[in-house]
């Protein structure tokens, strides 16, 4: 292969690696911590954030415009001015000379348009950052801090409660519902979005970065879904909606109370209405409802829930059966409230609502949904009917600052370890040592890129694995260099020695690396957690070091021979 072609290959590999590393650079180096804190939050939190931010910006601009403040705001509101520019252009109007509060506001038809534009901009920005975070190198819990919890579903306990052994399908259903319940609570976990995934037949793995508060997390995980039916106060709901048009932030999110008194009657409560977004996660619809303070019916009375299709209209409906006591309560409730709206509330969130057409007894049909909605409502109702017993079998909590300390230590160990190796290589191999160092730096760079590309997690053991891999990767260089030295001692020319050295060392390097890679890949398949991270970094490091020691390092030698016309090899003391 010609040198140019080899150079192109090396450059192409480096470029591809850069593409994989770019999101990591963007996230860890160019995103401020406070933006990170928002971006790792749930979609709902991001939505809430952008709404509130937009509201306070619009408020500030309005106040400035009203006060006749004409100072230039280019520094303060660059994003908003960018948006306003676009609005001016779209409507075909000339751009204003000065960007003050009035000219920014003047870009839009009305206040809602400004509000929506700014909100969308902030939401896009944060969602963009969120996706960057998803593509960036992930830090393990030992570095980022946080908690991991393995939850075990106890089917025997559930079987005891329902009175018969659970079939395979029922177990499947039960564990999926437990997952669903946890996903529903995703934004209660704290600032960061947790990883929730199934592990084997009966376990759930939850990883919560950033937070390490076992008590709170356990109460979220172990708390049973609290499902109830509430009667909606329609008049108060309408009044609240009108009030919120004027005051978009009139509801305090923490206490769920309305700032202005008199809108919500004494003793009634305000709740948010949710739907499922395309990810199957809860999404706040922006709507609020006022409910009676006590539930009309508790979810524990539900015995089963299914989805069927109405034989006449062909529309899907959700059916559920109540126990005897529940049937009586529900009948009383519905006969007293015909024409009113009934809301299904899970964990303080309104998941669905329907108008009561007629009094209903124990067998209930709710229609007016799409097939998916009917299915998710049925799942929701079943969650209340048959909750599977969960218990924590493994839990690790690591505070974020412990992680930071660990990172600092790891950084120091790596940098000093590598410098020591490089200095040693310079001292012992002179010119060839520089060659080896360049190869090792490229090696490290490719390793990180591969780690990013495969979405592997960087943990402390994998950092240690990297340091060690560098040590081992140097071995490939040493084997080759020692061979070249032997050839030189035998009196061969520079070119011949290098050719022979690489040729003869090839299989030694290949064999030794392949056996290590086999071992590492096998471990990565079967191991878990710590072992896996370690094994993967070892395997990746061995593969990339094959490339750098056999390919990149060779290219550097050939470049020196052919382009710089070197006649001798600088490869140690006493050898010419």
């Amino acid at each position: 292969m010609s040198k140019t072609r080899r150079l192109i290959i090396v450059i192409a590999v480096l470029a591809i690696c850069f593409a994989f590393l770019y999101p990591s650079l963007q996230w860890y180096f160019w995103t401020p911590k406070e933006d990170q804190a928002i971006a790792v939050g749930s979609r709902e939190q991001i939505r809430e954030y952008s709404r509130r931010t937009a509201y306070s910006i619009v408020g500030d601009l309005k106040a400035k415009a009203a006060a006749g403040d004409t100072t230039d705001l280019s520094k303060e509101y660059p994003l908003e001015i960018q948006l306003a520019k676009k609005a001016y252009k779209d409507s075909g109007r000339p751009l204003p000379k000065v960007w003050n509060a009035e000219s920014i506001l003047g870009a839009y038809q009305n206040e809602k348009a400004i509000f929506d534009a700014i909100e969308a901009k902030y939401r896009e920005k944060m969602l963009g950052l969120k996706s960057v975070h998803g593509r960036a190198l992930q830090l393990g819990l030992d570095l980022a801090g946080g908690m991991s919890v393995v939850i075990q579903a106890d089917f025997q306990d559930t079987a005891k409660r329902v009175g018969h052994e659970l079939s395979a399908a029922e177990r499947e259903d039960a564990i999926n519902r437990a997952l669903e319940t946890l996903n529903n609570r995703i934004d209660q976990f704290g600032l960061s979005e947790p990883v929730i995934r199934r592990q084997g037949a009966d376990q759930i793995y939850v990883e919560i970065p950033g937070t390490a508060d076992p008590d709170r997390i356990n109460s979220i995980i172990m708390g049973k879904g609290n499902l109830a039916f509430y009667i909606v106060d329609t008049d108060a709901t309408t009044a609240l909606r009108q009030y919120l048009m004027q005051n978009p932030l009139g509801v305090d999110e923490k206490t769920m109370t309305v700032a202005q008194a008199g809108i919500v009657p004494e003793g009634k409560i305000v709740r948010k209405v949710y739907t499922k977004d395309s990810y199957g996660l809860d999404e706040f619809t922006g709507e609020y409802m006022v409910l009676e303070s006590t539930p009309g019916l508790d979810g524990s009375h539900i015995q089963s829930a299914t989805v069927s299709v109405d034989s006449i209209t062909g529309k899907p409906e959700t059916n559920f059966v109540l126990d005897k006591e529940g049937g009586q309560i529900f009948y009383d409730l519905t006969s007293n409230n015909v024409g009113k709206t009934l809301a299904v509330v899970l964990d303080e969130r309104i998941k669905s609502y329907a108008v009561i057409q007629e009094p209903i007894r124990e067998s209930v049909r709710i229609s007016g949904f799409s097939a998916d909605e009917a299915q998710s409502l049925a799942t929701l109702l079943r969650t209340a009917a048959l909750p599977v017993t969960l218990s924590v079998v493994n839990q690790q909590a690591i505070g974020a600052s412990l992680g930071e300390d660990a990172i600092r230590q790891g950084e120091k160990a790596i940098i000093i370890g590598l410098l020591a190796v490089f200095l040693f290589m310079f001292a012992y191999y002179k010119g060839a040592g520089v060659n080896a160092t360049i190869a090792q730096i490229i090696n490290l760079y490719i390793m990180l890129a591969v780690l990013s590309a495969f979405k592997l997690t960087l943990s402390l053991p994998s950092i240690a694995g990297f340091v060690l891999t560098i040590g081992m990767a140097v071995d490939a260089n040493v084997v080759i260099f020692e061979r070249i030295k032997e050839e030189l001692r035998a009196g061969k020319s520079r070119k011949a020695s290098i050719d022979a050295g690489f040729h003869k060392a090839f299989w030694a390097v290949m064999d030794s690396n392949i056996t290590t890679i086999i071992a590492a890949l096998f471990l990565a398949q079967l191991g878990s957690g710590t072992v896996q991270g370690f094994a993967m970094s070892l395997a990746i490091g061995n593969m990339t070091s094959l490339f750098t020691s056999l390919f990149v390092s060779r290219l550097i030698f050939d470049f020196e021979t052919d382009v710089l016309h070197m006649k001798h090899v600088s490869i140690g003391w006493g050898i010419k």
Partner: protein
Amino acid sequence: MKRVIRFSRFFVPAVIISSALILFGLYGYFTKGFNLGVDFQAGINQTVQLALPAMSATYTDKGNAEVRISDSALTLVLSGAESDEKTLVFDFKTYPTIGDLAKALGGVNGISVSVEPGSEALPATLLVPTYEGNTFLSSAGLVIHRAPKDASEQFADIEQVRQALSSLGNIGVQTLQPASQQRFLVRVQDEGTDPNFAANARAKVKAGLEAKFGADRVVVIKTDVVGARYSESLTRRVFWLILGTLALILIYSMIRFKIEYAIGAVLAVVHDALIMVAFIVWSGMEFNTQSIAAILTILGYSINDTIVQFDRVREERKLRPNEKFEDVLNESLTIMLGRTIITTFATLLTVFSLIVFMSGSNRDFAIALLVGMISGTYSTVYIASAFVLWWDNHKEKREKAKLAKSGSQASQPAVKA
């Protein structure tokens, strides 16, 4: 030509020494056992610090304010809409005392701080890092703790901690160094009787300590919980993992080399793993998933080292088929000595750096690696190569015997004739 070092002369004593070390290790394993880490023992492992309150902070503005304290700085992250979003880092070098820090923190909008009397002038580095638990400021006030300034303020020792927790059943308490900071590792074994063991045991440890030392004086640094089923499956998996890896290495090296090389390489690897086991048992180092990772790494390192060596032996043998194998072996070991020394030295540099700069279990990990690497380099010469030589001699003898047998048969008719 350089002088050839006669490595083979030391093969027999080396094998004897190695066997003795391994037997000693196995003896320790069966009598003493591993100091099993939390990964292998059902129960909770909790690091607690008995500390003194240093200051208390409240936050009344909108949004969230989170305080994080590390060894070297206090970080305040303000987030959420409507608040000034920012991250403030108060470095302990710039704010050397708790009083300075409290003043700086109190200067932030919405935060007010009250310092406990007697804490103002103390160095900020005494503050207990916020590792576990809620670190969000609210109107209720978050207490930030500090370690005792000197011996006069110490109020707890390991005996008192044991006493405070004696009602919990099977517990273990360990003092974490330095003793002056009053940090203890508490282990409570899961007897399997309480389905909600994790949460209950945690609460009981905290309650027990608070009852003895006072409510404001207990800080939980870290809690790990391992269920019985989890630890069992881990042990089983690790065993099969190592066996499977060895089998794969054996198969690959059998394809690439001859069978005696493959067996020699695997023997060397097993030797290194057992030497590490001996070291871990007798040093009393905790055996956890990281120790497994260390053993697995050495598996990779040792096989790497051995294969490079064997490649050279094989090559030299092809070049000089008529020479005695022992001489060929000694010569290739001598040629490769330079490479062995340089590689080992370079790798040791990185491992030393891990030992010097890491702490706790990561440092143990690096020390285990160090032992394994020395063993790995040694075993290439004195176990793997020694085995190949032994096999070769043995084969030669067998062939000679065969030859002698067939020779005598062939000569018999001659005698008759």
